[in-house]
């Protein structure tokens, strides 16, 4: 008896050790990638400002005098508070790089727990956890300080506690996770719709609906709608239904909300999880009835629909779709392994499990390596940052600096000066016009038009960064003659000062 118990404990420990190894591998891989890149990406500078503001004042920067030369931000602040908390123990630059990746890596644990609950099979669950850690799309979106790094694991942990709601303590955990999620990001809506789909499928299949599940879903539903209405009321009024697309300028919209293609899905998710996931969907629908699998089936379905109809940013949608398919693939793996173990060659199941891991590594490694080479957007160069630091040291405090929209947060952070636009478009009037004007200011040849726009936006300085020169294939501004413009900084990047001239 004692021996059996010890052996069981030993087995559990082994399973956990493997999971810990997968987690450590994923984290190490992510950190290696992040630290091999110099500096931070453009969006991370907004996170830096928010976190620094929290450290200084205790509150996030909801009213920002620098962004768009003065605007209001609306967002749930938990992610920034979390980073601010960690920044008391280590340098902020390290926090920005380590914590989001730690959170992303924790997805491995969430997927393992869900898969284990779904399949009751350790091997299948560990394989699914491995898949989730190395699925290509998760490395596409290795944005160094993405809020999704926190919201994604939270969503999947919540779905896990939701499935185990009958067990002691899970209801409380669900409520805590719901609140944390709401304070992190509005992506909780996807889970909410998945719950609705889940209940519809259960009703259609005449399966019993768990009362506690229904109650938690109802609570989440009302809380999410109420909280988001309260938070984004002004944005709803200003942008109407376009709010769903975050008021992103029309020319940028296609890059945020891309068309979904079969090849795109394969390269983002990998062939194996996709095939196994689809097999699991077939199995759940036509062969066996599994309530837990139904939830992830609904989740995958809604992710796909939202991607298809462009209600969700492309990469985020693919992230959701891939994780759900991986969870479902655990179900497919289990079915295969169980079937083989019942044959005359049960040992073959171990070989199959190993083959799946090898096959995944082989089929996913190619798109993954390719993605790191092609998809990564370059971080701002030291020259650009030096130019902005020069602006900070040599210009008046209230000046407005023009840069590309992508450079907006960097301008605010590095030069501590106002920008014309940045990548947070919510609550900004006539964003299309503004975006177009910014593009024009880098390409115009006609001085009078440029001066008019400069006056309209009250611009004092123009930053012509390395990246801007590459993007617009220019080496200087065409209209910048000495009557109206003065080159005040010229190295790899150029800074122009606008002399406020009048043009007839």
């Amino acid at each position, binding site marked *: 008896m004692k021996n059996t118990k010890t052996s069981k404990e030993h087995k559990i420990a082994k399973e956990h050790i493997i999971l810990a190894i997968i987690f450590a591998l994923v984290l190490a891989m992510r950190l290696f990638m992040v630290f091999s890149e110099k500096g931070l990406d453009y969006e991370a500078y907004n996170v830096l400002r928010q976190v620094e503001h929290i450290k200084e004042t205790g509150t996030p920067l909801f009213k920002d005098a620098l962004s768009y030369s003065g605007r209001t931000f609306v967002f749930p602040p938990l992610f920034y508070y979390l980073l601010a908390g960690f920044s008391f123990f280590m340098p902020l630059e390290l926090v920005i790089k380590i914590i989001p990746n730690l959170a992303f890596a924790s997805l491995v644990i969430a997927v393992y727990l869900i898969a284990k609950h779904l399949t009751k099979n350790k091997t299948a669950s560990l394989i699914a956890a491995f898949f989730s850690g190395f699925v290509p799309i998760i490395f596409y979106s290795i944005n160094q300080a993405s809020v999704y790094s926190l919201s994604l694991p939270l969503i999947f942990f919540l779905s896990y506690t939701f499935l185990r709601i009958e067990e002691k303590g899970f*209801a409380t955990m669900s*409520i805590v996770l719901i609140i944390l999620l709401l304070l992190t990001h509005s992506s909780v809506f996807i889970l909410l719709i998945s719950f609705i789909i889940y209940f519809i499928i259960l009703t259609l299949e005449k399966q019993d609906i768990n*009362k*506690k599940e229904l*109650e*938690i879903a*109802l*609570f989440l*539903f*009302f*809380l999410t*709608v*109420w909280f988001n*209405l*309260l938070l984004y*009321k002004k944005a*709803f*009024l200003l942008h*109407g*239904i376009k709010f769903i697309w975050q008021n992103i300028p029309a020319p940028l919209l296609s890059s945020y909300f891309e068309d979904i293609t079969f090849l795109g899905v394969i390269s983002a998710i990998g062939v194996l999880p996709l095939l196994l996931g689809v097999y699991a969907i077939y199995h759940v629908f036509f062969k066996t009835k599994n309530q837990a699998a139904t939830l992830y089936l609904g989740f995958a379905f809604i992710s796909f629909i939202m991607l298809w109809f462009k209600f969700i940013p492309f990469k985020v949608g693919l992230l959701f779709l891939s994780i759900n398919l991986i969870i479902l693939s655990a179900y497919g793996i289990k079915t295969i392994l169980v079937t083989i173990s019942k044959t005359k060659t049960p040992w073959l199941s171990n070989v199959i499990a190993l083959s799946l891991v090898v096959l995944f590594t082989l089929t996913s490694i190619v798109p993954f390596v390719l993605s790191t080479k092609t998809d990564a957007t370059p971080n701002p160069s030291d020259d650009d940052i030096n130019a902005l630091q020069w602006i900070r040291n040599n210009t008046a405090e209230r000046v407005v600096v023009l840069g590309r929209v992508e450079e907006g947060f960097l301008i605010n952070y590095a030069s501590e000066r106002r920008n014309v636009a940045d990548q947070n478009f919510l609550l900004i*009037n*006539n964003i299309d*016009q503004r975006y177009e004007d910014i593009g024009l200011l880098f390409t115009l040849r006609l001085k009078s038009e440029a001066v008019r726009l400069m006056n*309209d936006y009250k611009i004092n300085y123009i930053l012509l960064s390395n990246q801007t020169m590459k993007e617009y294939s220019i080496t200087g501004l065409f209209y910048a003659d000495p009557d109206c413009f003065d080159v005040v900084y010229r190295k790899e990047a150029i800074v122009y000062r606008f002399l406020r001239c009048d043009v007839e």
Partner: protein
Amino acid sequence: MTSKNDDLIEKIPFKRSRGKPGFKLLILSLSLIVFVLSLVLVVRLVQHKPLLPAGESYYNLRLAQELKENPLLIEDPIQNTPYQPNPYHYLLALLLLMLSPSLVSIITPILLGLISAIIFFKLLTLLGIRYEDAAYSLIILAVSPAFINLFTGLYLYGFVLFLSLLIIFLVIISKKSKYTLALSSLLLLVLTLTSLTGFIITLVFLLIICLALKRKVRTVIMPSFPSIIALAFLAFFSIYKPVLLGFHSFEFRNILSVLGADLGYDLFLILLFFAGFIIVWSKNDEKRLLQLVVLIFFVISFFNTVARAYSSLVITFYCVTAITYFYNRKWELEIIRTGTLLLILSSLVFSLTSQVNLLIDAQPDKEIENSLLFLKKLGAGIVLSAEDTGFVIEFYSGKQALLDQNSFLNLNYNEAKNDTVRLFLTPRLSEAEPILGKYNIRYIFITPEMKQEIWSDRQEGLWFLVENSDSFVRKYEYASIELWEYAPGRRT
């Protein structure tokens, strides 16, 4: 009378609420309605803003003032268009004989709202809905954006809703009384002249209610005969043109109050309506046809403003059903029950406060009023401004606005609208002058909202032109409001 009807009515079974049935609840609901409706007007009064939020109220009040002076008005003296007599304007004119315009603006909407709520309550009880649930429906009504909007100004559809409810109520109780039948016939005639869409919706409602109460259809057909005959007569032998108003394409901005719809639904109330609908549907097999009609009407309301006003009343019952269900349901997790009910309560408060805030903040403010009173002193001429400011301009300045919210009824509306857009966007005098001349525009009234919405706060288009051309003379400028006179060849 109620007990007699109760025999005919099949009660809709749903769980009983925990509250005590009683008169106090009704009084509380009605007090809440009066409080909410008066709140907007009182706050505007305290803030020294003109009492009524911008829009149709100013048109109705202006015409009532004209009718007070000349009851046989045949032409709108400002718009110079034929005037189709509207009973609502006559009612307001009658009130203006006794009260000041300010008092009429305060008392009329609140009174109409209150009476409508009382009739609605009576109707619900007549239809077999429990006394307390009917009273709770009034509480939901008090926080409905459409109801608040309709009864915080002099809106035609508010009056239409009141008339409809009164007619339905009279028809239901007029089982054998010829006097009530005659009164309902007369009111139907008044309703027909007020709003044809309202008349048709009322007839549909009456038919549905008759079917639900298993009454003879004759009880509906008979009182509507005089109206139909009168309508046909007027259509053929007078200038009256029967038009079905209120239709529009499907747009979330028109439907959801959170997106700024004037007569929209609150998102939470829609969610509660669906929850209530599912509950009623699943518990009541016999009346599913009736529920289906309600659902169809709800869908139609997405395409018609008048239908939305009616539907805002109908959904309150379903919202109450949903809330009662959530309250009475045996929850497995007590904390979730408390949380959900608190959320529902706070969402209702949220709905109320956002709509009230919108109306309080709505234009016109004191600055707009002053600028238009200044315009009144200037010589006659057509005023160019934003379409939704048209009625306010006409009310205060006594001058015709090129476009107002009634202009869509004119034949040349699309042409005028396109020309206006072109005019607003052109910075060239050569392009602007032909349009200014075509419509005899003399004044250009620029508001801060126009600067933001049309020109993105940048001096462009017509705004740029008026500032930089000698053909325009600045007449007034204060608080970002500008008034320009188009006077070619003259600069003072």
